């Protein structure tokens, strides 16, 4: 470590920024209250709530549209987002997506929780965890596109605006997870 010879730079160096003791998370009800205020403001000002799975879909479609625009124009689902000269990124979900990435990073930085690591149960290897996280992501987004929204767009936003369909989706998400939880308990406990 050659850096140690310059103690002055250490307090402002990257390692000082990232390797601070992690602060505890906020109380769940307080976190929920703030999240509720953000959601209310979004609905009140724009009429749209919060979401992110739609942006994932739009980013993928954007790439597909660059590679093979004719294929996009032949596929009904993609056509809606990127048909003809439509830009799939012209949607409120896209800035929300990037904002959320930046917001998560900022909060982690303040709380001393930015750290290259793998969060997992005690009895699984990193590799298994990565593989399952990947698989889970594939399934979750597949289901989210089918249900037209994920936990944010359906359960949270749709729940708050009292959409009947969203409450059904919310119950199905938790139902699916609870039904399977017992069989994969070794992953997490």
């Amino acid at each position, binding site marked *: 470590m050659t850096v140690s010879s310059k103690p002055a730079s250490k307090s402002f160096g990257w390692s000082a920024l990232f390797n601070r003791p992690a602060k505890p*998370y*906020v*109380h*769940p*009800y307080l*976190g*929920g*209250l703030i999240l*509720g205020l953000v*959601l209310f403001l979004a609905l009140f*000002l724009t009429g749209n*709530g*919060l*979401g992110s*799975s*739609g942006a994932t879909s739009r980013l993928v479609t954007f790439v597909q549209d660059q590679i093979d625009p004719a294929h996009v124009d032949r*596929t009904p*689902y993609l056509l*809606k987002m990127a048909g003809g000269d439509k830009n799939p990124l*012209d949607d409120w979900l896209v800035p*929300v*997506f990037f*904002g*959320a990435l*930046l*917001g*998560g990073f900022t909060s982690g930085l303040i709380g001393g929780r930015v750290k*290259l690591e*793998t*969060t*997992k149960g005690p009895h699984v290897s*990193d590799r298994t965890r990565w593989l399952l*996280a*990947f698989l889970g*992501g594939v*399934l*979750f*987004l597949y*289901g989210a596109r*089918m249900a*037209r*929204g994920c*936990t*944010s767009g359906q*359960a*949270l*936003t749709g*729940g708050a*605006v009292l*959409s*009947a*369909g969203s*409450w059904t*989706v919310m119950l*199905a*998400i938790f*139902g*699916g*997870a*609870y039904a399977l939880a017992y069989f994969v308990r070794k992953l997490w406990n």
Partner: protein
Amino acid sequence: MNFPLLAFQNVSAQNPWTYLVFGLIGFAFGFVLEMSGFGNSRKLAAQFYFKDLTVLKVMFTAVITAMTLLFLAVGLGILDYSQVWVNPTYLWPGILGGLIMGVGFIIGGFCPTTSLASASTGKIDGMFFMLGGFVGAFLFGETERFFTYWHNNVSYYGRVTLMDVFGLPAGVIVLMVVLMALFMFWGAEQLERIIGKKDMSHEPRWRLYGAGGIIALALVVLFLGTPTTEAKYRKVTIPRTVTELQADGTVKEIQVRYAAEEALQKRLVQISPAELFKARYDQKLKLTMIDVRSEAQYNLFHLRGALNLPLETLKTHIPELLATAAPNAVYVVMSNDETLATEAWRLLVAEGVPNVYLLEGGLNAWIAFFGANDPQIQPLVGAPAGELHFTFPAALGDRYPAADPDPIEYEHLEFEPKIQLQIKRDKSGGGCG
């Protein structure tokens, strides 16, 4: 000022500051998720083993906070609920998609937005989840064509709220949801104590005051009720693009917003029989004709394809109209003259039904124009106002030629076009999807 703001309904490079606003909303969203611990998959997964119910607490606190404030704003008349995105109900795709999401949740340990908070704070599993998410979204886009009918048409119910399902006013539903959530929080704390072996004796007292506060707010919502039709009507404005001759001789298009009553007085929403006739064949419009007279009068004569929704019962059909409103939907209300149709117009406009017009001169004007050559229909002299000014040999409904005039015979008609489509929201793009 009426909320939500129209300025935010189109996000595009033309108005870059909308990116900023939604970017800030996203920033706050990611920030609060991370600080609640949702960057950690183990904390999320603990929810499903009843050890740490943070997910449930955060999510339902957010839902009841946003919901109560939202309906408070609706009750105070500053927020137009019909302009708030309510996720349309696609029942079976929602249920199956939800179950698949549940499986992804317990295997992957995240949901899409929490994986963003996780990946951005350096969690490798969060990054893998995000990566998998892109693959999943890609796979869905490529496979949707095999079940596109099921996905888009089967079990589609449109904009259905819990109020519609239970037939209860919003205030009652809000209070019930709040009470249910608080009961779940109590249950969650018991579970954490018993199964999670957590010491719950040091939980802060303010959470009890918070619970009291949200119940009090929900009671205010219940007490306020929803604004009356009259109150909503006074706030409605109708946007119109008008051409204006400038001082330098050029013509410029400008957007003008008229109060609803003013639009009526200026006759901006009364369309001539000729325009209605043409609109019936306009592929760009999804026209719904609403005949608001009594059933007996409807049976005597009505336009082919017109729905009979008598004025007295029209209000009960409004949720249905809102639920199934396509972006290019146009509604034309009609009665014998304009009196009943104007009343119906006021009601529909006040309740937020988009693109409503009324038939100028009513069915009398229609018949005078399209039925002039029909020997079966004879003018009735001295008919009172509000009645048909014609006699019919029998109640043949729409089987008179004038009920469905020949499009070739009347191909060339002159009229002053008044229909201007106001597309409020792109249905395929809203609400996380």
